[in-house]
């Protein structure tokens, strides 16, 4: 059950400091323009949907050798359909040569927004794909338990065999079949070992 998927890349300690500063700035600007959710969603869409598809665009915007005028032109042509706050923000990021931090900025902005609005992100892992209807059911159930608004992200991992693994923040509630089997194995072996140690005679085969 190792971490996988594009939204779950290893944590980037070095860029995190920069990312937090820019994310806070973006949220502040978006708040003034009163389009916080829209801006954060658009940024996420750029990071998740656009840049992986167009690696050359990413390279161009990250490269220090491309003059700023060219980058601004490209940004204007590509993202003018979105909100003006985001466009300005992207230009600022480019000008400071921090376009490589965009993924971290987007993730931090989403996390900060969720924190502000009292939303928790819950990662649910199942062995097989679950129908959408069950997502809604899960969402309401988890919302009741956590007493917060819940956003669900689903993943599938055949290794867990069955059941659910729910991750809220850093806490994992593991109800998977694989985990239960390994627990049974551990307790059974531990108990057997302890009993053997306590009374060797019971387990010994008579030599005669």
């Amino acid at each position: 059950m190792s971490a996988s998927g594009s939204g779950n890349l290893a944590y980037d300690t070095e860029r995190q400091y920069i990312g937090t500063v820019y994310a806070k700035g973006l949220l502040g600007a978006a708040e003034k323009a009163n389009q916080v959710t829209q801006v954060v969603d658009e940024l996420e869409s750029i990071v998740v949907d656009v840049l992986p598809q167009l690696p050359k665009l990413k390279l161009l915007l990250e490269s220090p050798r491309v003059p700023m005028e060219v980058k601004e032109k490209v940004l204007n042509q590509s993202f003018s359909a979105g909100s003006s706050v985001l466009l300005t923000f992207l230009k600022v990021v480019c000008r400071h040569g921090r376009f490589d931090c965009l993924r971290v900025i987007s993730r931090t902005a989403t996390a900060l927004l969720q924190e502000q609005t009292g939303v928790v992100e819950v990662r649910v892992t199942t062995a097989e794909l679950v129908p959408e209807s069950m997502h809604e059911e899960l969402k309401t159930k988890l919302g009741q338990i956590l007493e917060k608004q819940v956003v669900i992200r689903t993943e599938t991992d055949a290794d867990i065999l069955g059941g659910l693994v729910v991750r809220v923040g850093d806490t994992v509630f593991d109800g998977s079949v694989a985990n239960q089997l390994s627990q049974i194995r551990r307790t059974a072996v531990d108990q057997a070992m302890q009993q053997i140690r306590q009374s060797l005679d019971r387990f010994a085969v008579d030599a005669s």
Partner: protein
Amino acid sequence: MKFNADEIASVIQQEIEQYDSQIDVREVGTVLEVGDGIARVHGLTGVAAGEMVEFPGGITGLAFNLEENSVGVIILGDYLTINEGDEVKAMGQLLSVPVGEAVLGRIIDPLGNPLDGKGPINTTERRNVETIAPGVAERQPVHEPMQTGLKAIDAMTPVGRGQRELIIGDRKTGKTAIAIDAIINQKNTGVKCFYVAVGQKDSSVAAVVDQLEEAGAMDYTTVIISGASSPAPLQYIAPYSGTSMAEYFMYNGEHCLVVYDDLSKQAAAYRELSLLMRRPPGREAFPGDVFYCHSRLLERSVKLSAELGGGSITSLPVIETLEGEVSAYIPTNVISITDGQIYLQPDLFFAGIRPAMNAGISVSRVGGAAQVKAMRNVSGSLRLDLAAFRELEAFAQLGTDLDAATQSRLDRGYRMVELLKQQQYSPMNVVDQIMVIFAGTKGYLDKVPTNKVGEWESLFLEFIHDKKQDVWDLLDQNKDNKDAMKKADHPATQAVVAAIEEFAANHKF
């Protein structure tokens, strides 16, 4: 022996039938980077400093550094099987080791895993590796002797139960030999011994174990090994886990002797960890809290109050100096923490004076109160006399003519130095020690040639044990009498003097 598979299967079946399915709740993180015995982990937001964490494959670690965005973990095991991106699980408990009678006679690693191939450690009790030392109200002053069996030490720098006596010296000066003799001498005294080998060659540890086995000392001794090939985290925790095992006996009212061989290697392991964790280096690149690392360890050596059972842990930490440099960082730290030190000098060692203790700068700050009274009476001024003799000896080398009084003091000194020599692995009973030191300080050896002093000693002790056992017994009964061997009219003194004179009349050297 053979096992009955059906019986084992029935136990396992019973377990499965009774198994109560519960959702496993755990705090997790992800490995960001790993190497050199440490890992940096993202997540684990609720983890406490010193808490145990588990990597895939059952390898445990300790949360060592709690930072803003990550947790530094020291890995207690094979870090090569851990990969970036692995899930790390907080275990919600502190590191503990198995304790109890079952660890005696065993050779184990700092986590309590057996290394001697004698099967699992059969105990259910565990103690935390890091515990806080008992407070002031829970202690009492050191007052019982802990005999090392070495004349030089028991006479001049006596060690009491609950004392911390540092053994310090260059390489190859007999530091470990003193500690091993002290362990061997605890035979039949009920004292449990723990030998913690940190960062040493496995071959030297094997030799030590052999010696202990040969002397029959392994029955009451536990050897805790984290050798030179162990990762730094294990070397760092080894002394703490050895102390935990000793504490079990101490809190049950028993007495323990712990040898940390050696703490300079442990400090180096701690330095390695701290530098990898990017803690700021200080003097000699050691981290700022290396003093605390040793002080909290040695504070756990205690004489407990009578209400708590009066148990004790005596510790003999060993420090290796470089070129006799006692003013280096770690030696000064540990000297200031301990209740005295035994300083071993290479030039004495190579001159054949073994144990190579320098009487001038070796001290015992609390052991005097614990010394056997008769021993204190015979050896009271021995340390100062020997120091004065060394000065006089240096002066005499100038070749000037000496007056008779000075010459006789020199002669007495040469004989005392001879008398304090002792073979390795042959600790002596305190009563034997009192008799021979008494003979030396009172001038009964003045007529014995210097090179015959060793012979005199062995023949004299043979004579006492064969023919004068009554004198030996009398002194043994009176050894805690404050007048014994001090006042000439005390019966024990009279009997010993008579025995020495009788021996002198029959043996000519």
